[in-house]
């Protein structure tokens, strides 16, 4: 085949505010790149077909599935993982609410869950509980159950709008 198709691709992107350059195999998805190549093991690789949400990270401002995006497609992108979001304090209130409400047990789903919740909380209005459930319908939690998670998100939404 010609040299325009590559099996290793050079990428330059920003991860948690830091510039990163790397050479990645064509089939490498973003979540393996973050975990195995960069050592950012917060977000998890689980079902690897978009169903469970454990791999959810933020790319160019949007919550996306890390398992359904190639690292090669992240060239030039701004990526945030739970490590960066924790260090920056951007979702400190949400993380505190998860602890206060016991919204995690094993914590496997939590990094993806937090990115998905943070996405919902950027919207203007305080979401109804149904909307919170709907928004989190693509993030599976196999041990805590969802009630406490919905409580945590609702309390942060209200607090951020001074209505708690």
């Amino acid at each position: 085949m010609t040299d325009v198709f590559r099996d290793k691709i050079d990428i330059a992107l920003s991860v948690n505010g830091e510039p990163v350059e790397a050479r990645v195999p064509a089939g490498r998805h973003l979540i393996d790149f973050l975990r195995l190549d960069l050592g950012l093991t917060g977000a998890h690789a689980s079902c690897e077909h978009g169903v469970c949400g454990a791999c959810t990270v933020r790319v160019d401002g949007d919550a996306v599935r890390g398992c359904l995006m190639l690292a090669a497609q992240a060239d030039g992108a701004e990526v945030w993982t739970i490590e960066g979001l924790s260090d920056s304090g951007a979702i400190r209130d949400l993380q505190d609410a998860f602890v206060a409400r016991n919204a995690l047990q094993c914590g496997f789903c939590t990094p993806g869950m937090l990115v998905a919740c943070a996405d919902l909380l950027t919207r203007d209005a305080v979401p109804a509980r149904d909307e919170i459930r709907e928004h989190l319908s693509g993030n599976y939690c196999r041990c805590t159950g969802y009630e406490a998670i919905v409580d945590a998100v609702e309390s942060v939404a209200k607090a951020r709008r001074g209505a708690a």
Partner: protein
Amino acid sequence: MKASAGGYARASDLRHALDLLGQAGDAGRVLVGGQSLIAAMNMRLSTGDMLVDISRISGLAGVTQQDGRLRIGALTRHADLGGDPLVGRHAPLLAQAVGHIAHAAIRNRGTIGGALAHADPAAEFPACVLALDATMHLEGPDGARDVAVGDFFIDVFETAIAEGEILTAISLPVAEPAEVQILKEVARRSGDYALAGLCLVRRAAGVRLSALGVGSVPVLAQGAMAALDAGDIDAAVTALRAELDPQSDTQASGGYRKHIAGVLLRRIWDEIGGTA
């Protein structure tokens, strides 16, 4: 499991993408949002593809209105489509569909062109564009061509897009003043593919009714459409159930899917005031 790709190339524009596809021959595979393709690659249902990433080609995303038609670029993401004011006004069926497709994070990357090219018979957009009587715009090595939606869906995961061609946009007539568009479906959980679903469009010329999840392609229910035009909902439900032949699987039996389709038609009919 881990994906295996034969190679990757990012297209800078449409011409470049078509050249890349030409070079790759039958191993060539268009990649956009990856929300179906990368899932299939991870499961090794698709291996060795020469990926042509067209997701950064400018001018293929977004919605415009010209000459009485709405044109929707193939790269328009589900999330953007759902919030687009022109879509809200002229193709509310598509905006309704977005709420049923997968989950927010998937809607942030999946594109309408990808969903139509993927042609999952249980997906919402294929049935929507059938009910809306859309035209599909393709671009290939020999130039552009248009395909009527009735000729586009050929079989499960198979469309009229030929090797080396790219779906660039779809277009549909702008809504008439009293036009009605409505989608209803039954799914086991929010974001799941539907067990069965219906899309109804009512224009001055008559009703168009399509069904999803009940065959190998989205089905235009012509018998039911004729009965609805005559204002006979009972005859329409009977005709609809007769013209569907859904498979049974672990989710639901074929008979149950047919039953749901009839129930959904009555609900839609009630909601739109039950007149032809």
